[in-house]
């Protein structure tokens, strides 16, 4: 029973949601209810995840492991933020400034780091993988789209050059469509395997 019950729950909930695609007019508030329950569960899962993070850092602190200084910083920041959040609420300008004026600089700087790393590794893009069809296509496409982004190229509307540029801009469409179809097929197969209980990612035993 212990192993069958989760399988039954997964299958039933999945079938009900799938039915919503076909019987949308009659699905009523049932689907919204199911989704709301799911959102509540996901929220609790998020809290559990944060709990694990804190547990790990507290362990590091208690056991005097390497890096406990940073764990102290993390825990103190967490406590301060949480306390201020419950005191001031999310709508308060002070709390919004506190969060955004730390998140935006850090995340934007990490992206800036990415720019530098992409720039420094651009010299090895081809040499690492060699001259394969994929790497040739990659190089030519990257150069072409970077050049087109510069805005130097000006072509008259309806001319052959303009048509050529339009065609070049549409070339990634084919690959993107193939990638999207591939991802959709993969998602479909995985979803079907889960609903048919061929895969049980929610616990031990298959």
């Amino acid at each position, binding site marked *: 029973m212990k192993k069958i019950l989760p399988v039954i729950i997964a299958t039933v909930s999945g079938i009900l949601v799938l039915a919503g695609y076909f019987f*949308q007019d009659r699905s*009523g508030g049932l689907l919204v209810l199911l*989704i709301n329950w799911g959102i509540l569960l996901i929220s609790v899962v998020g809290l559990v995840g944060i709990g694990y993070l804190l547990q790990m850092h507290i362990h590091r602190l208690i056991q005097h492991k390497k890096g406990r200084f940073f764990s102290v910083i993390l825990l103190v920041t967490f406590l301060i933020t949480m306390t201020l959040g419950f005191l001031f609420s999310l709508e308060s300008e002070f709390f919004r400034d506190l969060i955004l004026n730390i998140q935006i600089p850090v995340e934007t700087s990490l992206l800036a780091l990415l720019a530098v790393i992409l720039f420094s590794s651009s010299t*090895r893009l081809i040499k690492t993988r060699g001259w394969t069809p994929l790497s040739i296509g990659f190089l030519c496409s990257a150069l072409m789209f970077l050049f087109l982004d510069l805005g130097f190229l000006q072509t008259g509307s309806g001319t052959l050059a303009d048509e050529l540029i339009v065609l070049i801009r549409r070339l990634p469409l084919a690959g993107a469509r193939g990638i999207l179809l591939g991802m959709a097929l993969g998602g479909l197969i995985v979803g079907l395997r889960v609903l048919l209980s061929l895969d049980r990612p929610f616990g031990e035993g298959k």
Partner: protein
Amino acid sequence: MTKLICPECGTENDPSAERCSECGAPLTIEKLIENSKGDETGGDALDRLSAAETDLPGLLHALKQDGDVTDEPGGGEPSSMDDASLSVSADKEEDKVLPDWLNRIRQRASEEADSAGEIIQKLSAAQENLAQEGSESKHEGFTSWIQNIQEEASSSASENRAAEESVSDENRKKPDEIPEWLNTIRKIRGTAQDDLKKEPSHDLGGDSLLQWLMDLEDGKATSEEIPKPGLDNLDDAYEEGEESAASEQVFDGGVTQELRIFKQEAPPLIVTREEQAQADQLDATIVDEGASRVLQKPGKRTSKWVMRLFFALLLIGSVSLALFAGNSPQRQDKPLKPQNQALLTWASEISPNAAILLVFDYQAGYAQEMKLIAPSVLKSLVNKVTEITILSSSVSGKLLAQRLLGVLEVEEALIINDLGYFPAASYGAYGLANRDHGTWPLAHLPEVVQEIPADGFDGILILSDSDESARSWVEQLSVLTPETPINLLLTAQAGPLLLPYWESGQVTGMISGISEAAAIEASEACETNISSLWRAYQTGILMLMIFMLIGAFFVVERTPSDEGRRAS
């Protein structure tokens, strides 16, 4: 009852006999040990025996633990099993010399019919213990003890063999009449009978339990299960008077009779191709692990960050120069891309009473780029409609929405409905699309906290930095609300993978990246923040293009094999 085997001629003698009845050789323990050992081992057997008692591995512990075997003087009744060379005799000297456990074994073997079976079971258990025993000292002690006994047995067996060959041919067993237990052992050990004849000295050990035990210790033996004792066969074998079988036994300190139990054929060892391949791979891995390798010099690590810092300074320096050098050139008006034009057309044609949903699905790191992309469309929207609904599916989306709308300087009369935070984009899209459907009456259903328009939305604008989450929204909304126009404001990285949705008609319009936003602003001839940093943007792109070309055609990449050759 145990019997003494003469080391000279191999004749069986009474346990109480002091001399061989056939050739007259002395049968005392000292003499037996002297005769069986080589010169180099000398008189250490007894010492080793007593020393080995302290290092007994699991096998002998298992045997030793049998407390039912008591020391009794060896009786005159002939036993159904042959005894080993050392007998449990009433000789007090022997009792003093031999360990008690050995005496107990002999006594038990002489008295109990099924002692072999129990011993085999204990051997099985002990075999497992042997495999787990990690004690080197015990291993060494046992190994040395076994080796000693083995050597004694080899020499005694060779002498026995020599004596056997002198016996009439009628007593020689034909190959097909060799007892099954011997064949079993030979099969297990993989030793052909002919090989035994060719190499009598130590290949005889292939037949012996001792050699097998020794090999187990060394990890050479296979871990086949010990065959069940076939006692019926055993009895038959002795009824036939197989003296030669007895002569093939080796001295093993009282455990010889276990050999007789291996009468049943071991199951044939079948190795599949996959197993053979795995074994070969394991061999190759072991060889590879033992192979010498070229040491990687750690000095390269410091050069990596130096190069990275160089490139960083180059990029930052050139971009900063372009940024602060002077005014950016005026961007020329050029035709917009069709997807951009479609979005602008939708925004311009929206009615003042339209219900618009804004989905904020981007992270804080992309806030600055979104602040450059979004205003061209959002301004015209928020200035036209009287009410907008916002929803966030990113962690900071709620706060970013407040900041972005604050930047746009929206009118205070604009009503903003906040549907809150949806942790999973696909759940939010699915739930939102189904919210206004439903004829199944569910009694006393809790009321939805958030208010949405009764007729649904007239347009949905998704601001996203990731193709994955934007795809979730598009997939669900385009299926469940196909009549609602969906538009996308995306960062540059998400654009290419979402273009097929525009091309298929699922998305009405889209703007992705700063270059498209710049083109829109140029077409609208308005001065924006993009103009101020456009030159710096162009400089950065040009630098990247130059270094990509340099790297593709001029830089020689060091491969690991080159480094290995250089190091050697």
